[in-house]
């Protein structure tokens, strides 16, 4: 019965398993639920209160986000008649596909990357930088004054953080000499963080800016423009909008672990022999811890003003990424690694 074998082999092949199951869609969904719950629990713990609890009384309210998500599923889906109907519905779906595409490039074990091409790093960054365009479309299509303000802010912010993001990533690829994520990990005897700390810091902060987490929570700034581009969205489409930021954060933290924290480095040999797909456990653990730290910032900071954030983006982190570029060029020449 080769059909069943064929299907199993197909499912287990890197092209299907990595993007769908391990660092891809299913784990992203689980990470989405747990990270948002962890964010509310950590913030609650700092703020002397309990946070979501009675959803699953004994597990500390883990399924809170599941409850919120399914509630969105069953809510009435309103398309305001002043809104432009087709782009109003299509824009969030476009944003979601763009947010899921990076998992097609992210490897999870040495020989196990869905698309093993020498240019996976720029491909991932290109896909992630396309998301603001669809958020812009969302804000424009719902024809509401606050959402137009939100869309304009998203445009400003995306310019502010993408340039440092790209330059610090490119400076690391210069250091390693390759553009493909898989080879980057193999080349990392010392974690990238120690080699070029400036690039690591700029990448981290522009990652926070791109995911719209505090203190750069400017796009859906509740206190000024109600919910930014997502004002008019109800039901599951708003669920997608809200999950978008966390999906982007998850993809970027995976890339951050691969570039700077030497990916799946302490490779558990026996897991690799059984099945390479699940060998990248440490990649996932490091990325998850990084996300917990970023999510913890929510209870520490307020919100920067739009012009302050842009000033930081352009004056501080753009310069820092240029410095990191020069540093990695110097390192490359000296160490000729």
């Amino acid at each position: 019965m080769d059909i069943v074998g064929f299907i199993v082999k197909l499912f287990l092949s890197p092209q299907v398993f990595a993007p769908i199951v391990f660092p891809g869609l299913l784990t992203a969904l689980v990470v989405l639920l747990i990270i948002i719950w962890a964010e509310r629990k950590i913030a609650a713990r700092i703020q002397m209160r309990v946070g979501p609890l009675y959803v699953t009384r004994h597990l500390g309210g883990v399924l809170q986000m599941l409850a919120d998500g399914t509630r969105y599923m069953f809510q009435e889906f309103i398309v305001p008649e002043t809104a432009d109907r087709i782009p109003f519905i299509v824009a969030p779906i476009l944003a979601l596909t763009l947010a899921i595409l990076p998992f097609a490039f992210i490897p999870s074990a040495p020989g196990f990357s869905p698309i093993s091409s020498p240019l996976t790093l720029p491909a991932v960054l290109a896909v992630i930088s396309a998301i603001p365009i669809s958020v812009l479309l969302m804000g424009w299509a719902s024809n509401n004054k606050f959402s137009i303000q939100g869309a304009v802010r998203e445009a400003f912010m995306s310019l502010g953080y993408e340039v440092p993001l790209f330059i610090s990533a490119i400076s690391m690829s210069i250091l390693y000499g390759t553009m493909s994520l898989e080879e980057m990990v193999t080349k990392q005897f010392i974690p990238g963080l120690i080699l070029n700390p400036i690039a690591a810091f700029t990448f981290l902060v522009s990652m926070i800016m791109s995911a719209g987490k505090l203190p750069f929570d400017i796009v859906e700034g509740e206190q000024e423009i109600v919910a930014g581009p997502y004002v008019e969205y109800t039901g599951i489409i708003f669920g997608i909008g809200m999950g978008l930021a966390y999906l982007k954060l998850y993809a970027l933290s995976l890339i951050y672990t691969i570039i700077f924290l030497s990916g799946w480095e302490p490779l558990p040999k026996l897991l690799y022999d059984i099945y390479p797909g699940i060998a990248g456990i440490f990649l996932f653990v490091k990325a998850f811890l990084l996300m917990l730290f970023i999510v913890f910032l929510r209870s520490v900071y307020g919100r920067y003003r739009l012009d302050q954030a842009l000033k930081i983006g352009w004056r501080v982190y753009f310069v820092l990424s240029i410095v990191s570029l020069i540093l990695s060029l110097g390192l490359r020449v000296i160490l000729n690694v």
Partner: protein
Amino acid sequence: MSCPFGFVMVGRLEESARKATKWLVEKTPIRSLRDWAITFSLWPVHFTTSCCGAEFAAASAPRYDAERFGFLPFNSPRQTNLLVVEGTLTKKMGEAAKIVYDQMPWPKFVIAMGACAIDGGLFYNSYNIVRPKDILPVEYYIPGCPPRPEAVAQAIIMLQEKVRKGEWRKA
């Protein structure tokens, strides 16, 4: 969708799809899942009507933390399913309450908080007061002026039980 050639076919498809989902949602497993989800994610819209807002904020403050019930005050009416009328509803605020209620998506509930929201309270004979029950379908009334945060929590629990048992669709 308004594509021209498939108009006849699409028209019936959309309408039958809607009927199918309505039938599917009423089946017990999906229905209980929906009721469980709505029970634990009652998000009130950020709409302080009058001075009971102080006790409503105290209800979600650390001591009487209402987020234990999944009760997260959210900012836009589109994403919420609970409108808490906190205190006296003046004429001007009444119109705003009506607009906010209409903007909220379908499974939505209204809680009237405070003696003023029940029947005018201390301002029963004022010329600028509207009773919430005249303009909004109110589910629960919370007595007290202002009601203690425990009373707000009690109202949330009662609404959760009502939604969990699924009686909210009969009305």
